[in-house]
């Protein structure tokens, strides 16, 4: 029975996917519209994209920008968020700035950034950086703020300096919250990656998608949507695995799996 349940838990996400594809297939057949290919047609178009060298180069370029943007954003945002959480001065300086930037769709800044930095990698990576930074800063901030004062006092009594307390108490104590922010950041990285390529058409996965749209190759459009979606699921599952390993000590033991991990 236990094994049966475990099996069910593993198969359920797969069933959900199949269900979605079935609804898509049925809707496409019912609507019978050129711009809405069936699921089967879209899936059939995938191998030709993945087999094409140019397309692969484009996708790899996207992923590279995303990796750089994400990594730099995380490296900058975690220390900033932690400092904001522990210092009222730092928080009151950066909070208004972040409040202004937060609701602005980062892709909306793309045209301006393109004017300054051109249509190349730098602009797109910067937009990804901006998209990832805010949730990571926000969650690091919240996590650092929630660290129990008494835990820091205990560390201070052991002789830890302020800097040591930040690195060796605040950082690990806030890690579950920080990683929640990073997970949101990862998804946002993928989204800003595609939207930046939609605006600055030059290379990348988004470029393939929107070029196909321009040329009316709807099979390719939907195939790319599936590929991008699969990339998101894959990255998220990978991240979730790393996250779970890092914060095994923290509270929630029965997390609702949001990914195929």
């Amino acid at each position, binding site marked *: 029975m236990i094994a049966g349940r475990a099996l069910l838990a593993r198969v359920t996400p797969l069933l959900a996917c199949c269900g979605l594809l079935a609804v898509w297939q049925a809707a496409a057949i019912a609507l019978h519209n050129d711009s809405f290919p069936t699921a089967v047609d879209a899936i059939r178009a995938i191998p030709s994209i993945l087999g094409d060298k140019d397309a692969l180069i484009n996708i790899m370029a996207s992923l590279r920008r995303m990796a750089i943007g994400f990594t730099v954003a995380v490296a900058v945002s975690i220390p900033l968020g932690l400092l904001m959480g522990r210092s009222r001065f730092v928080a009151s300086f950066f909070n208004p700035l972040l409040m202004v930037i937060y609701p602005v769709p980062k892709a909306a800044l793309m045209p301006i950034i393109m004017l300054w930095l051109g249509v190349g990698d730098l602009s797109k990576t910067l937009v990804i950086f901006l998209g990832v930074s805010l949730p990571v800063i926000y969650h690091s901030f919240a996590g650092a703020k929630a660290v129990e004062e008494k835990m820091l006092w205990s560390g201070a*009594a052991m002789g830890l300096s302020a800097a040591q307390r930040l690195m060796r108490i605040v950082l690990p104590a806030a890690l579950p919250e920080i990683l929640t922010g990073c997970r949101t950041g990862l998804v946002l990285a993928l989204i800003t990656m595609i939207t930046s390529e939609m605006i600055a058409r030059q290379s990348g996965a988004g470029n393939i998608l929107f070029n196909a749209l321009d040329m009316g190759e709807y099979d390719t459009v939907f195939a790319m949507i599936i590929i991008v979606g699969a990339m998101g699921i894959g990255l998220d599952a990978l991240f979730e695995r790393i996250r779970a390993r890092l914060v095994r000590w923290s509270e929630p033991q029965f997390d609702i799996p949001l990914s195929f991990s």
Partner: protein
Amino acid sequence: MAAVRARKPATAMIEIDHVSQVFQTSARQDHLALSDISLTIEDGAFVSILGPSGCGKSTLLYIVGGFVRPTKGAARMKGKTISGPGPDRGPVFQEFALFPWKSVLGNVMYGPRQQGVRHADAEAQSRALLEMVGLKGFENFYPKELSGGMKQRVALARTLAYHPEVLLMDEPFGALDAHTRTRLQNDLLNIWERDRKTVLFVTHSVEESVFLSDKVVMMTRSPGRIRQVIDIDLPRPRRRSELLLDPRYQKYVVDIERMFDDSGENELPP
């Protein structure tokens, strides 16, 4: 035993010198939490600070710990003004404040490792301490997997591990059920009677303060003032079963409770 019980000459370990503490409330009003407290705690004494909640007794402990700076006056340890936390004063909090990402052993080893004790030595000492507090076999558990009483045992071992000269205990058993509380009181006394560290123990339980202490400092509700200092002249080592039947113990408890009743200290503020 006789050697242990022979008292060292009474030297002042902690001196609290005309300490007052003012807090700003959220309504931007000044709240006088402690008013002109002076108190001397002798080396090797077990002193309880007893008072109703909100009398500033924990604040007083935090000032001695160096976690809170007094608005007026100063606290001194061995004649030196306390300006911040240090490993000579080890806190044990009601909230345990364990490091949840560290195992039980990792928590206890943290202090010695910070002090530069070699890993193997720190581990050996920590294992011995964990055995002393009754947690042998739980070294590799994470704090979240422990009950409240066990967590507080870890916290006590973690603090003892870096050999503070003074233990600062902030209602350490306040969050525990009655049974666990009793067991931990007994164990604390047993541990304390081995090396007689100076202990400053904050509580709102009259029985607890009489059972554990050499001296009970009674405080009034806000502003916190010292109402009376009572020497508890009961033989040590103390056994709970004997003490509860001892008329002297009973008298201390009743007298102290009566003093609080007379002043209306147990009433809620208007």
